[in-house]
């Protein structure tokens, strides 16, 4: 069946760890931090010296000055807050719908019969193409943006949850039964924890997709947010504004994705992947 492509396969490691001289992590970190500093300097002085056309790439200091000014007036926080709100709202609704449906698909033949074809057809479609339909139905305000984000995030979450809750190892479940657990206890205490790595992978796939979608909806429908401000700046040929938006969105994306990674590390301390 083509429904579900599990993204996380257990990585096939060699039986024995490679005997290799452990790289000095401190050197690694220093060099990589150095690369970032050099890139920032090259950006700053490349623009200043005139090696780069300042319209195509305004200098880092100009961009940071713009962000500072916008932070003073508060617009940065409004934009970042709105973008974050739309992303997370859509994402969380998708998770609240997608995880139970994925679990039910694995547990009930009827639910599976109904959702399996919808997921297998919907999963690979470019959902963003449906955006004008949502605009038509729900107008251009937050409702339609959040629904669009939910729609985009829903499929990877359901698919991953379903993949994680079907085909589970039977030994832990039989062990729990032998120890006297009832079915609903097994669901919460065995099946969901076993599926958690895959569910989290699904969420980790969905969240960036949700952000991409949020940015596009903001660019297309306006209503502020980082995407809205960036497309406005672009239309007015305000390249400093565009790059200020890029810097903001790099930070936001990094923070959001890293938070989810940290959540994963916390929730999966028991998992072999935590030992690295």
């Amino acid at each position, binding site marked *: 069946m083509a429904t579900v492509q599990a993204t996380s396969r257990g990585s096939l490691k060699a039986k024995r760890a490679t005997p290799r001289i452990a790289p000095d992590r401190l050197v690694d970190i220093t*060099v990589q*931090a150095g690369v970032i500093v050099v890139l920032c300097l090259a950006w700053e002085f490349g623009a200043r010296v005139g090696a780069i056309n300042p319209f195509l790439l305004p200098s880092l200091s100009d961009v940071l000055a713009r962000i500072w000014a916008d932070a003073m007036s508060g617009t940065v926080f409004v934009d970042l807050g709105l973008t974050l709100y739309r992303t997370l709202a859509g994402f969380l609704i998708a998770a609240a719908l997608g995880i139970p449906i994925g679990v039910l698909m694995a547990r009930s033949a009827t639910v599976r019969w109904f959702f399996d074809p919808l997921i297998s057809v919907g999963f690979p479609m*470019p959902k963003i193409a*449906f955006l004008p339909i949502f605009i038509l139905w729900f107008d251009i305000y937050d409702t339609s943006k959040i629904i669009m984000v939910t729609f985009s995030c829903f499929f990877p979450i359901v698919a991953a949850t379903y993949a994680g809750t079907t085909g589970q190892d039977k030994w832990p479940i039989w062990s729990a039964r032998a120890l006297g657990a009832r079915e609903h206890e097994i669901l919460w205490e065995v099946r969901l924890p076993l599926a958690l790595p895959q569910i989290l992978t699904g969420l980790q796939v969905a969240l960036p997709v949700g952000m991409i*979608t949020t940015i596009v909806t903001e*660019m297309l429908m306006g209503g502020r947010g980082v995407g809205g401000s960036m497309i406005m700046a*672009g239309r007015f040929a305000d390249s400093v504004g565009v790059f200020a938006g*890029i810097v903001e969105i790099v930070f936001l994306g*990094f923070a959001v994705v890293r938070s989810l990674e940290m959540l994963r590390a916390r929730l999966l301390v028991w998992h072999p992947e935590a030992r690295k």
Partner: protein
Amino acid sequence: MPRAGTGTGGINMLLDISRGALRYSPIAILLIVWELLGATGLISRQMLPGLGEIFGELVAAVVSGDLLYNCARSLMRAGSGLLCAVVVGIVAGLLMASFRPLRLLINPIVQIFYPMPKSALIPVVMIWLGLGDASKILLIFLGCLLPVVVGTYNGARGINPFMIWSARSLGASKLEVIHEIVLPGAMPEILNGVRTALAFSFILMVSSEFLIATDGVGYMISSLGDGGIYPAMFAVIFFVAGIGFLADRIYAAFARRQLAWREA
């Protein structure tokens, strides 16, 4: 799967068809609900055009050549961006996995830009390259690059080191090992990364055409929507969704063939 003889072929085909019909009946149910909502007037025809009308518009758009032309334009952009991303991404990923200095050089850039939502680059490429094809191809290239790099890198790093040692002891040079062992060994993850990139290429193609284009399917959808010609807009949207679905199916079949060795 056992091939049925000619005698039972007809029956088996009927069985296959009815099994397929049962499998996809939920989609039919949704379409019927769609029709009923419109027919009973619960939702206005403006919001939810009849399926017959949408199909008629689809046929008309195909026959006039309009849809196919715009589709070809879009796919040309997505295809060239994706192709460049695949080539550059695989090379970069392999180099990163094989040479520590390059890893230290490229890794921080990947770490910073990987989580960035790539659609934010739309105004950037607009400033850099204007409204023509080049800006959209660059956008799709940049958006598809990192999934390929990261997939290739993880695949190459995850290879059983004893496989590399075996090749070395059979007389392969270090460069030969990269091409003959690391590349095929990383192929499962490379193909996964390219699949993600394929999905991104469609997302970025459509959204960039919504915003900065004068042709392509995305432009068609948004201009039909702006003009209030909703049945035609629905037709093009479903067409684009279908193309995206098909592209993924074709790619999945291709990937399965590449990985035939994995199936016992």
